């Protein structure tokens, strides 16, 4: 197994993607080279640098509290993979 710090199985679970064993192994190998570059970042002295909060500094972008036209119920549900009457339908929550 490649020497990368990521626990791929755990991360895939967090990201809600079912990875196969093969994918996990392949990704680990593919990440290895990228981590070579990423490790170089660790060497930089960034103690006195602030992280870029925004690329173009803006603040206080707010909108008035006004009602705007929204989607009709049909338009909202039109792409639903499964629906029941006016609701989106999904499998049960508990395993």
């Amino acid at each position, binding site marked *: 197994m490649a020497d990368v710090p990521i626990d791929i199985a755990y991360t895939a679970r*967090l990201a*809600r993607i079912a990875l196969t064993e093969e994918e996990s192994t392949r990704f680990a190998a593919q990440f290895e080279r990228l981590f070579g570059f990423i490790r170089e970042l660790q060497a930089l002295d960034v103690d006195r640098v602030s992280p870029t*909060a*925004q690329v173009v500094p*803006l*603040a*206080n*972008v*707010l*909108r*008035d*509290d*006004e*009602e*705007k*036209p*929204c*989607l*009709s*119920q049909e338009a*909202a*549900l039109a792409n639903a993979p499964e629906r*029941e*009457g*006016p*609701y*989106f*339908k*999904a*499998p*049960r*929550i*508990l*395993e």
Partner: protein
Amino acid sequence: MSTFESVIGLEVHVELSTRSKMFCGCRNQFGAEPNTHVCPVCLGMPGSLPVINRRAVEYLCKTGMALGCDVAPHSKFDRKNYFYPDMPKNYQISQYDMPLTSGGAVTLSSGKRVRLNRIHLEEDTGKNIHEGGRMTEAAATLVDFNRAGVPLMEIVSEPEIATPQEAEEYLGALKAVLSFIGVSDVKMHEGSLRCDANVSVRPVGASELGTKTEIKNMNSFKAVGAALASEIARQIALAQDGQRIVQETRGWDDARGTTYSMRSKEQAHDYRYFPDPDLVPLSLDAATLAAWKSELPELPAQRRERFVSQYGLPDYDAGVLTENRADADYFEAAASASGDPKRVSNWLMGDVRKALETHDLTLTTTKMRPEQLAALIRMVAAGEITGKSAKTVCDTMVAEGGDPQAIVAAQGLGQVSDASVIGGIVDRVLSANQDSVAAYRSGKSKALEFIVGQVMRESRGKANVDVVKALLKERLG
């Protein structure tokens, strides 16, 4: 007696009563047909972006200022990442390390101050309905996204609440403030106010906190009190038995009166908070904050003090009448229309409250206007109707509205003071109740009360009771 004490912290989520949602222009309305107040933004459709609702920020800042919090000069929104079917984006836009306010306190009616940790702004999720009943039996999940994106204020207290009773007081005091500044309709039964509790126990006098559990699913202030009491008892029993208390989330089962473990098979969430790159920070300037502060109305505590000092109400009455803004405003309107605040207060706390309960109304939803209540009170004082008739009129006004004079006329409830009319009724009653007359003459004063009652009954409550008594005195000696 228990040698343990409980330590309670409350997290209260309040839905703000803005016209539109937190990050989009959809209508913010409870109880609508499912999925009719939704748009690409609050449905998390591809390509959609959030834009902050200014009024939500204003409402939170006003809440913070009313509770003595520090409003942060710089604040931002972060993404809280987790998957759930009622989450349109599978991340919630919230605030993590730079909340809009910090500090502040809620003052209980006892005078105790419970300090706040923070108040922050976030968006609500959609609503899951478990098809087939409870989550554990459900066959499927039905989702309504009308609520997704509604602005939510999260108020976190320090763990300074000592008892379940104090917890209920805290909620009442908080609700009053929120209702007074008008930022939420604070209806727990509609979900616009929700409460989670953190509770632990420790030996009395200890300084370290015990292991806490989080309690969810309490749907009323009373349920909060009951749930806390139950959980505290459970924890104390475990502690006394030398057993460990597991840190976990527990739900309140109102029907069974116990808490139950909600520990899922999932590990603790890693929310992976990071600043939302679709939004820019807030930098509220002093002028804006000052303007908002100047718009704050009189708060419950100040109003209560004024009701005592200006209107001479007893503390208790003043407290009840300032539980929410609508009631306090109603009282003042009626008091100023009638000129007799004490009487108004008595009516509101007594017969009006009873009538409201009977008809499942509030002072906001009733058709009876404050001036009409004042008019009714004046009619009683002027002897135009009896107290008993007034109750009937009140009930009608509360249920249907209308002017008291019109109702009295329509129902023929005008008080009768004409001695000759009453005299006739008195004579009939006396002749029909000879044994009571005899009893009275032999010293049983209760018999007189009975006779008076009969006269009132005969007159269908309309007889002026003073005149009745005077006539009886005359007849019976």
